[in-house]
Structure formats: C-alpha cells, structure tokens
C-alpha cells in the first residue's frame, strides 16, 4: 500500500505516553516552605535592570531572615522567574507562580507591558502583587484589590517631563518618539497632553519597534522639522542608539527621556560624548539623598557592588511583602492580603508609604537627572 502506517490510535497513544510519564514523574509531597515570587527580565536586553532588581529583592529577604523568623514553622524563599521583557512569558511565569500554593506574594514585573497582563493572573489567584517600578497608570485602574505599587506613575512623569522641557529648557517644538509598549505609549501620551496644555507644539509623534537599530532616517526627518527637543518614552537600548545617531547626524534638538532610560548602560552604549547634555526623568528622588536609604545603599554595594536604578524599589517591595506575610501569621494567601490591607503605612528606605484606594503609594516624586561627564547628575525632584 502506498500510504504510510497511520493509525488513529497511535495518535492517542502518543498523548497517553506523555500523560502517564508526566503523571508519574512528579507526585510531590507538601513542604514547609513559603515563597515570594520575583519576576523580571533576567535575560535579554533589559537584563541589566532585571538583575539589579533581583539583587534588591534578594538583599531584602536576607536581611529580613537575619532579623528573625518571619513565619513560624516555615522557611521563606525567593523564587525568581524570567519574563525576558515579553508579555507572553510574563503570563507564563505568572501562571507558574499562581499554580504553586506556597507562593504567597509576588514582586514584579519591570515592564508595564508585562505587569499588566500578569496582574490579572495574580488577581484571579488572589496573590498579593507588589509592583516596584512599572509606571503605567492603567495597571492600578483595573480594580484589582490585590495590587500595590510603590513608585510614581506616568500621569506624573509625563507632565513633569513636559514642564521641565518647556519651562526650564524653553522648548517650543517637540518631537515625541515612543517604543509602542504599554509603558512607552502611555508615557508619551501623558507627555503630549501636558505639553499641549503648556502651549508647546508637538511637531511629530512616531513609534519605533523594539530592537530597531537604525534611526538615521527618523532623526533626519526630525532635523528637517526643526524640532528643538526630542522626547523619548522607552527603554535604554533604543535610547542609546537614538542619542548616538542624533550626535552623528548633528541634530540640534535637546533630548529628554523617561525612567526606562535611566541606566548607566545608556551612557556607555551611546558614548559619553554623544550623551552629554541628555536629560532623564526618574521615578523618585535620588536615592543617595534620602537619609533613610543610606544603610541600604551601603549594604547593597558591599554585597553587589553596583547599585542599579531600580534596586531600591525591588528591595522596598520585597520588604513590604515580607512584612505582610509576617503580619498574616499563616500560610494563606487571603490572610496575607488582609494583613496588607490592614497595614496603613509602611516606613521604608524610600520614605513613608501609604496606599490609596487603587493601591498606589502616596509617596510620589519624579527626579530629574542630566548626563554630565559620562555620569548621571541629579538636578531636582518634583512632586
């Protein structure tokens, strides 16, 4: 016969073999462990940020464990997963954490485009979700009462950037670029709204694809529009290339960008020469200037050497999660949620956090930095 040996049962037996194997491969037994999940981009082009945050979380847990037992009878562990900045992977990681009954709280993610879909999963699983640095305002507007955020949001960052650009730098014609992600698009929209309110002209608004390297056509266009300022809402890999090519093309516009670009690698990738005079907004005041953070900075630098832009937030978020678990007193997600709600305020290294009805912290400042001599220099903080 010409046709191949094709049986319908062999189809079934394939699936069956798999099922049987998996089933037998792991019938676990309950352990006396309680876990805090951490998710962020640990590999990929955002790894610098993600690993910084992981270190912050690790330090937080270590210090909490040294200070004493957190939950009687249980060991508290940090389980870290990688979302590679991809929403699909973020959702997969969230599901894994949700499926593990020992996970009582999650700290994460970094990118708003990852945090937003993942937050829905944490909400359905009723896990405490503390977000360190995703600044898109919509995340807390989904009505999830398990969601808390400890940083400022873009409905503050955008206007702060706009005010700085227009009032301090005197920009009149602004070209806005974003990376089309939840974060980038959201921040750009807020900026444009505020800029128009301040009577500046937005001469163009374009999106770029993540991973794009060649911005020379776009920058040439900006040069021809005679814009005096470029506002970029996105992350540092793309920003670095924009800044470098802006220099090479001799585009006379100033450059202001959002917190996603606040990373030392920005200056390195763009070359210090090209990055000179670039301004960046960040989600908080300079952590070096907060007295309560000094101990943290010393401990962090002793352990990990390099303090990243987001390390302190991940640290703070993890400390809060630990505190909520301690107050709950038992291995139960709803108890943890209730304890968190009860906690009216938290005195952390960044200041005193009080959470509003949506779960956002009332501690909201935007810091503004300039790049001078190859380093970020803190200029001022606005509320």
């Amino acid at each position, binding site marked *: 016969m010409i046709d191949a040996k094709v049986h*319908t049962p062999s189809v*079934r*037996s394939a699936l069956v073999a798999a099922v049987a194997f*998996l089933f037998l491969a792991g019938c676990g037994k309950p352990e006396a462990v309680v876990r805090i999940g951490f998710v962020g981009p640990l590999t990929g082009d955002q790894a610098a940020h993600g690993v910084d945050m992981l270190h912050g979380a690790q330090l937080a847990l270590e210090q909490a464990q040294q200070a004493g037992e957190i939950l009687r009878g249980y060991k508290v562990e940090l389980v870290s997963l990688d979302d590679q900045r991809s929403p*699909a992977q973020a959702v997969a990681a969230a599901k894994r954490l949700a499926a593990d009954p020992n996970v009582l709280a999650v700290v994460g993610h970094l990118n708003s485009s990852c945090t937003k879909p993942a937050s829905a*999963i944490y909400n359905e699983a009723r896990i405490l979700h503390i977000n360190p640095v995703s600044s898109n305002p919509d995340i807390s507007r989904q009505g999830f009462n398990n969601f808390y955020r400890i940083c400022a949001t873009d409905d503050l960052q955008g206007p702060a950037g706009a005010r700085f650009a227009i009032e301090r730098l005197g920009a009149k014609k602004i070209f806005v670029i974003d990376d089309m992600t939840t974060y980038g698009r959201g921040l750009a929209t807020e900026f444009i709204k505020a800029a128009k309110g301040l009577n500046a002209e937005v001469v163009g608004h374009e999106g770029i694809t993540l991973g794009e390297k060649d911005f020379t056509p776009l920058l040439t266009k900006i040069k021809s529009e005679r814009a005096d300022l470029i506002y970029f809402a996105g992350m540092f890999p793309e920003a670095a290339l924009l800044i470098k090519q802006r220099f090479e093309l001799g585009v006379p516009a100033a450059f202001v960008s959002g917190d996603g670009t606040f990373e030392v690698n920005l200056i390195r990738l763009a070359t210090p020469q090209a990055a000179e005079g670039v301004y960046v907004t960040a989600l908080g005041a300079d952590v070096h200037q907060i007295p309560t953070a000094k101990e943290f900075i010393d401990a962090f630098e002793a352990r990990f050497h390099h303090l990243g832009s987001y390390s302190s937030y991940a640290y703070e978020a993890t400390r809060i999660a630990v505190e909520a678990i301690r107050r709950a007193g038992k291995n139960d997600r709803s108890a943890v949620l209730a304890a968190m709600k009860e906690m009216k305020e938290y005195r952390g290294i960044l200041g005193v956090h009080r959470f509003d009805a949506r779960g956002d912290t009332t501690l909201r400042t935007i810091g503004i930095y300039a790049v001078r001599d190859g380093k970020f220099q803190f200029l001022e903080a606005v509320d």
Partner: protein
Amino acid sequence: MIRKIAPFLLILLLLPLFDSNSYRVDVLCTAALYALLAIGLNLIVGFAGLLHLGYAAFFAIGAYTYALLNLRVGCPFWIGLPIAAFSAGVAGVLLGLPVIRVRGDYLAIVTLGFGEIVRVTVTNLEDWTGGPNGLLGIAHPVVGSYNFGVDSKPYYLLLVVLVSIVAWACTRMARSRIGLAWMAIREDELAAACSGIDTARFKLLALGLGGGIAGLAGCVFAAKQGTITPDSFDFILSVMVLAMVILGGLGSVGGAVLGAVVLSLAPELLRSFSTYRMLLFGIVMVLLIRYRPQGFLGASEIRRELKGGHGSA
C-alpha cells in the same frame, strides 16, 4: 488488539483531569496545542509537500480573530471557534494563491516573508490589535453556567477532543482520493499534473485546511491565555512546529502528534537544559534530515524523497 486497549488509553488520557498539580496539566495543554498545529502543518508540508515557513501566521489569525470578535462585539467562544478556523483557512488559501506556482525553495522563503509581514503588521496596527502589548481580557469559554476560567483542566479536555477529531479526519483524508492526489503531487508534481490532477486545487486545499486547523488552535490559545501578544507568533514558532512534523515523520498524523508531544515536553523534563533548548533543536534538525529524514513514524518513501534521487517540487 487496538480495540482492546482503547478503553485503557481513554482512561489514561483522561487521568490529568484528576491531577492536583495544575502546572502539569497546563504543560499537557501546551503539548496538545502543538499537536493540533503539527497535524495542520503536516497537511501542508507532509501531505502536499509544500515547505511552509510562515505557519505561525495562521495561528495568529485564529487567535486575533477570536480575540477581536470577543472584545469588540462580545462574541462567545463557541461561535468564535468556527469563525476563527474559517478565517485562518481563508487566509491560508489567499496567501497561498500567489504562491503555489513558485518553486520549492522560493516557496519556503515567500511563506516566511508572508509570516513576518503578518506579524509585523499586527504589531504596528496598535489601534486594532493592541500593538506589541497585545490584547487583554479575552473571555474564557463558557458552558451553561460553568466558565472555564484559568483552570487548565477543561482546556485539556477540549483540546484532547479537538486533536482526536482533527487527527481522525486527517487520517481518513490521507487514505482517500484527496490523500492520493497529495501524495502524487508531493512525489512528482509534473507527473501528477500530466495525470490530470489539478495540482493548484489540491495545494490550495491543503493550505486552507492546514490554515484552518491552526486557526482552531489559535482560538483555543487566545481563550485560554486571556491575553495574546504578537511575540507569541514568531518565526521560531513556525520552525518549531516544522521540527515537530519532521521529527514525528512527514506525512504521518500520528507522527505529527508524537513529534509535538516529544518536543514540547522535552524542555519541561530537561529543565537544566533550557538554555540549550534552541541549540539542541538546531542540531536535532540537522541530524534528522541527514540520518533519519522520515522521523519516528514516517513512511519509507519519505526517506527516499528526502535523501536524494529524483528531485521534487
């Protein structure tokens, strides 16, 4: 003999529904989804002999069709399912029309090009598709008052049923005159055309059916995830499904399922190898074509066709 063990097979297949570890069931759901995709691609590559490198596009079309219908007009899953399959199938035919006369290796690249165009277009049309952030809040299937929700078990059952039906249908088709026509086209297109077979029609049929099956899978995927983003539908997915089809054996429905199950479960079982996963994929593909091009369950004539001798397409 098969008939005797069938009831046991059935019980074993349904066992996961009682598994308490929902992550494990989720992994099996993924395997079943891939199985569906592999069966569909097998129609195109294995039966009709068209090397298609853009299969992920049909998966995407199915997923986005349901997602958009659901989010914009509140279309429920059970109505969205056939619509998604149909639209992906139509896409398969439409994208296939210009392509079927192109010769073998160029065909592969054109389908790759189409796949990428679909993906980048979806990423860019943010107003319609949510852009790179995708679509959130897609409704889960509802039966009566029971909402599938985030529990993997009902999806697993649904997928097992779908895979069984589709596999059965494809097996029947393979033995029918359609299957014979496909085989003739695959072995020697010129001879087939000279024998009076309308090669264009059969090729389009394969593309349409294959696309439609991917659309089915896409719809279930979207409903299960609740969120879809364009980066789930990239070239790597197309190649992975192709690898599954080749591993299992081109032209064999059971082989496609086996290949899908093996390649989607392997990374789970070999956790420590996760960084090397893609690397191993590459090596496996090269070695397979070299030493066992007919895969696990492929027929011996596949080996002949892929190793050398008369050229095809």
